């Protein structure tokens, strides 16, 4: 999977790239409009992550250009502007998602994965992790071949974990993933805890290993015990 990150803030581009490379993606960066223009003309990407404000141009133009070249490439906008007009315009010209800065790398990663799943296999794909199988199209979860009934939030939580395996996730990032940024986090952390407790119990009941580890002071991690 090839991903292009168009972001002028060097440090941020670096963090995104590092995060994605760890997950097995081939990642390239472009810091300027011209750089990005050149790259999308020369290579083919599965997904591009575009910042709207670039020193020498506008992210929208890159998306328009890209959509003319290869319409199937997934596009995720990352922007500091939390304006409804920008979001609508982005969708109009063919972007798939919009993330407002500051965002969680784990959230971006989850969105990229979900986007690629939709784009590449039309959603007809299963996510496998050891004995756990998730069918996103029907929102069904199987553990050791047995159907496991999860609530909506538990399902979203599991998918978020599976998109970020072996990664320490902060409570805030999980809360925002589940409820959006308007949630008051003092309560949501407790809610996150109770959802994780339930998810863990349900998975254990069906004979899965205990993959959810809590990290003191930070949050949780989904990984091999």
């Amino acid at each position: 999977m090839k991903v292009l990150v168009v972001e002028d803030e060097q440090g941020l581009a670096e963090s995104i790239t590092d995060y994605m490379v760890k997950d097995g993606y081939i990642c390239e960066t472009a810091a300027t409009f011209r750089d990005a223009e050149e790259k999308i003309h020369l290579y083919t990407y599965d997904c591009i992550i575009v910042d709207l404000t670039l020193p020498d141009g506008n992210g929208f133009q890159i998306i328009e250009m890209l959509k003319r070249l290869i319409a199937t490439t997934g596009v995720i906008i990352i922007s500091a502007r939390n304006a409804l007009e920008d979001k609508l315009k982005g969708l109009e010209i063919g972007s798939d998602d919009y993330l407002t800065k500051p965002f969680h790398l784990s959230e971006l990663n989850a969105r990229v994965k979900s986007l690629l799943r939709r784009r590449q296999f039309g959603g007809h794909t299963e996510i496998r992790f050891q004995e756990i199988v998730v069918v996103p199209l029907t929102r069904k979860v199987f553990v050791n071949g047995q159907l496991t009934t999860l609530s909506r939030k538990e399902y979203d939580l599991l998918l978020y974990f599976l998109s970020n395996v072996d990664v320490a996730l902060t409570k805030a990032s999980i809360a925002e993933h589940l409820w959006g940024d308007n949630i008051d986090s003092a309560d949501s952390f407790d809610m996150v805890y109770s959802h994780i407790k339930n998810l863990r119990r349900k998975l254990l009941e069906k004979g899965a290993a205990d993959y959810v580890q809590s990290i003191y002071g930070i949050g949780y991690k989904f990984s091999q015990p």
Partner: protein
Amino acid sequence: MKLLTKTNQIYLGFSLVIYLLTALVFYQIIRLLIYDEVESRLQVERKDFETYVREHNAWTDSPYFVENKIDVIPVSRRGPVREAFTDTLIKNRYDDKLIPFRQLTFYEPIKGVIHRVSIRKSLIQTYRLIEVISVAMVLFLGLLLLGMFWFQRKLSGRLWLPFYDTLSRIKRFDLNNDTSLELSKPAITEFNELNDVLQKMAAKMQQDYRSLKEFTENASHEMQTPLALINAKVEQLIQTEKLTETQTHWIESIYQASRRISRLNQGLLLLAKIENRQFSDSQPIDLASLLAEKLTDMDEVLSFKQLSVNVQTTSPFEVQLPAALADSLVTNLVNNAIKHNQPSGHIELTSTAELLCLSNTGGQLISDPERLFERFKKESTGPDSVGLGLSIIRQICDSYGLSISYRETSGIHQFCISRV
């Protein structure tokens, strides 16, 4: 009062005064002229009378003088004045009508006896003349007045047309819109200058407004990007194995602080945007149902905090608001009602067409209720509260013709929104 009505009023009042004065003076002049004429004729007749008396040394009622024209009465002595003109009314011989006369009285000795002689001339013709002249004058002056009035109205209407045109264009001018103010170029120098100045002012205002908007956006961008960087680096840092407890604690603090700055920044930007009226797509929104919807959305939090909700919306509470702000308004209201609630507390939503109230149970207020809506006034000391929620609610209400009030009665905190 409109300018043209005012000028017309002044013009009409002034003209009427001038008109009445003119009429009065004119009437007096005509009367004077006519009296002068009558009196000089009476003088001539006196000469005739004196000549007659001198020649005949006697006076007989001559056919020359018809009835009431002359009175010759012997008197014992002369009166105090030698001769005098007076106005008198004398009954007509045929019908008992009183007729105005001008009379010249003098004393003349006939055959050695002093006689008082009164020669009179009827003024009835004269009066008719004055009447006719007066009526004609009233008519002509009235016509002139009306004509002038009409002309003046037409003229002012036409002269001020560019002004009214400019006025209506300015009224339609919207700073939020990108179209610049286009004004006509009237032939009248003053109006032309006015339009020039207005156009320049509008252009300047638009430019300032645009740069303000750009500044707001740029400020957001410039702040959010470093924050995103901090967040990303912290996220990478926590992936490191074997962090000590102290290090974890530090990282957690950095992370929380950066999230708080981000929230603060977003809140302040939202406030600035509302103040600058950068939301222009107002639409009718039923706040009551939006609030009820939001409460349903939050059911998970509500059940987690064991809060019961009672919705009593008798009729919709319709307001004109941009959708994004309506959402922000209800989110902040609901968040506030949840955050400051007590365990197994209660939230109640009531609405009529005029009033929308959201009340919640909760502990006593620590700070002054008057200052509750001020920025950075916080009740809780939690790290996630930035103290802008109620200011945002207040700002939205103030900017869109709504009023928000707070009331606390025996542990029930109530926020009510009504139209101003």
